[in-house]
């Protein structure tokens, strides 16, 4: 978290939203600490954007409350809420210059001309866009448009910053750079921030905590490390990182039919040419180079398992021994124990 904590704590209490006869959000509860950067992570249709729109005020929940610094904002429209949103496709006004786009929120608040100029210039320098202040949105690149949208949100000095899929329209290299920019900005400004994303890399790399969502519910809300090490449900284990999934129980290295589900991360599978304590014989089926690591597909008694290895890469057809350092065991979808 940042040293410069600003903004207010957000609390979502019992939010419910039904759209078109379908329950989109079902009794959603979330508490975000002041100054925290939280991601709402999930696939399309899980309800994360609906939740964000309810936080911003574009949707009124059917029941439940949205509280910011203890104040109930539920019935207020977006214009009355102290939150500012960066939209997925930036939503810059085409008939205004970059300067006017960023200045608009201040114009609404009837700020003086000099004050507006000072604040707008300040925020444009922060996002490095002073050289474009008189350009039109159609004249600048996608990445620059996003920075204008960000500037427009930051100029309002909001208590809550909302980002809707900020990286999804950018190419891979730019994504990494903008990710870092967002993290740096958050460190500097310390505004409570909520990011909606479907990209787990994005969420894992910049969030203080992540709320993993599925079908209108939050399955787990923890730090990235906790989500990775102790995924509370099968869904979370599957969603974050990679997983080998087996139905049944592992006993003595053999898969037995059972009610539970065993999840094993490929990073926790090792292959050696020699036997060691707790290892089992296995054969290498396939080796796929993936850059800085290799995917090694092993079979043991018709049970296929995937391993990630970065040293001593075996060759296809090699026979050796596999060890599993950690397994996640789920009963009825919830994490029962690790082994």
């Amino acid at each position, binding site marked *: 978290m940042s040293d410069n904590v600003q903004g207010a704590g957000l609390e979502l209490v019992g939010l419910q939203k039904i759209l078109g006869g379908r329950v989109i959000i079902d009794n959603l509860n979330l508490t975000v600490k002041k100054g925290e950067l939280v991601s709402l992570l999930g696939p399309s249709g899980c309800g994360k954007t609906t939740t964000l729109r309810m936080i911003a005020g574009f949707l009124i929940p059917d029941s439940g409350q949205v509280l910011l610094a203890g104040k109930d904002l539920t019935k207020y429209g*977006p214009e009355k809420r102290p939150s500012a949103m960066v939209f997925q496709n930036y939503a810059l006004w085409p008939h205004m210059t970059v300067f006017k786009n960023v200045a608009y929120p201040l114009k609404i608040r009837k700020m003086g001309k000099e004050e507006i100029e000072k604040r707008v210039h300040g925020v444009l320098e922060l996002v490095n866009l002073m050289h474009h202040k008189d350009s039109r949105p159609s004249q600048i690149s996608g990445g620059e448009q996003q920075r204008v949208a960000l500037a427009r949100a930051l100029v309002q000095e909001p208590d809550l910053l909302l980002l809707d899929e900020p990286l999804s329209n950018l190419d891979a290299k730019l994504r990494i750079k903008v990710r870092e920019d967002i993290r740096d900005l958050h460190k500097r400004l310390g505004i409570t921030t909520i990011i909606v994303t479907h990209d787990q890399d994005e969420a894992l790399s910049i969030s203080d905590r992540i709320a993993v969502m599925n079908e209108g519910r939050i399955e787990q809300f923890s730090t990235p490390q906790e989500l990775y090490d102790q995924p509370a449900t099968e869904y979370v284990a599957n969603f974050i990182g990679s997983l080998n999934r087996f139905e049944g129980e592992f006993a003595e290295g053999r898969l037995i039919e059972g009610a539970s589900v065993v999840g094993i991360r490929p990073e926790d599978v090792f292959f050696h040419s020699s036997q060691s304590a707790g290892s089992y014989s296995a054969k290498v089926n396939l080796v796929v180079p993936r850059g800085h690591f290799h995917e090694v597909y092993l079979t043991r008694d018709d049970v296929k398992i995937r391993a990630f290895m970065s040293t001593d890469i075996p060759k296809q057809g090699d026979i050796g021994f596999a060890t599993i350092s950690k397994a996640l065991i789920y009963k009825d979808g919830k994490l029962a124990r690790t082994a």
Partner: protein
Amino acid sequence: MAREKTTLNLTSGSWITRVFVGAFIVFMAIFILGPLFWLAARAFATSWTFPNLLPDGVTFKWWGTIVGDKSLLDAIRNSLIISPIVVLVSAFFCIPAAYAFSRYNFFGRKTFLIGIFAANAFPTIGLYAAIATLYYTLNLMGTVLGIIIIQLLGTIIFMTWIPAAAFSSVPRNLEDAARDAGASKLRVFRDITLRLAMPGILVAFVMSFLASFDEATGTYLVGAPEIYTMPTKMYALVLNYPVQIAAVFSILLAIPSVILITVARKHIIGGHLAEGFQIK
């Protein structure tokens, strides 16, 4: 965002193609511009009798006659007063309706939308005859109000459908962003929606003005013989005055159209409407 257009090169190809294209162009020029030249020539001619190829002389006296004739001046004055009123009244009622059609879903929405369209598909002379009988009961015959109402009918479709399309072309998220920035719904409409829909609304204004200004049938039925506008006066002109007067009057009738279209052209082609409707 505008699609690439393929350049059609009409001046290349076999000589047959070029002859046909050339002949077609000449024909269209004569067909369209011919009567206009004839009109312009007549407006300034002393007299021009067949079989002379050119008018006999040039004069401004016909223009003087118009200025001197009270009934003609009255007709001009009526047109220039009534048409702007019609357009403003039409805008007052239809533009909010257009916004509703564009942004809201309500009971009967589709019916109304198609209904407006259908009313214009109905043969106007039959419609006006029916309205005339109603007017007799309401004592609206021969009144300015009666003329305004009749001309309104022709403007409704322009003032509703075109602005509705223009409003619909304004992306919702631009309005959302303005609300998020702190603008009230009214402010959003004024600063964002209306501004971006303006080219389409300008088109609607121009079309409506022309529809009202040039409207002759209904206005004649209702207005004659107490009130004449320029188009309805034309009927009388053609019969009772020399043809040169009619030519001058025609030119006068065309002037507002030319002015409006020239002024509006800058805002319509090139700019946001062009981006929205993909015209360049």
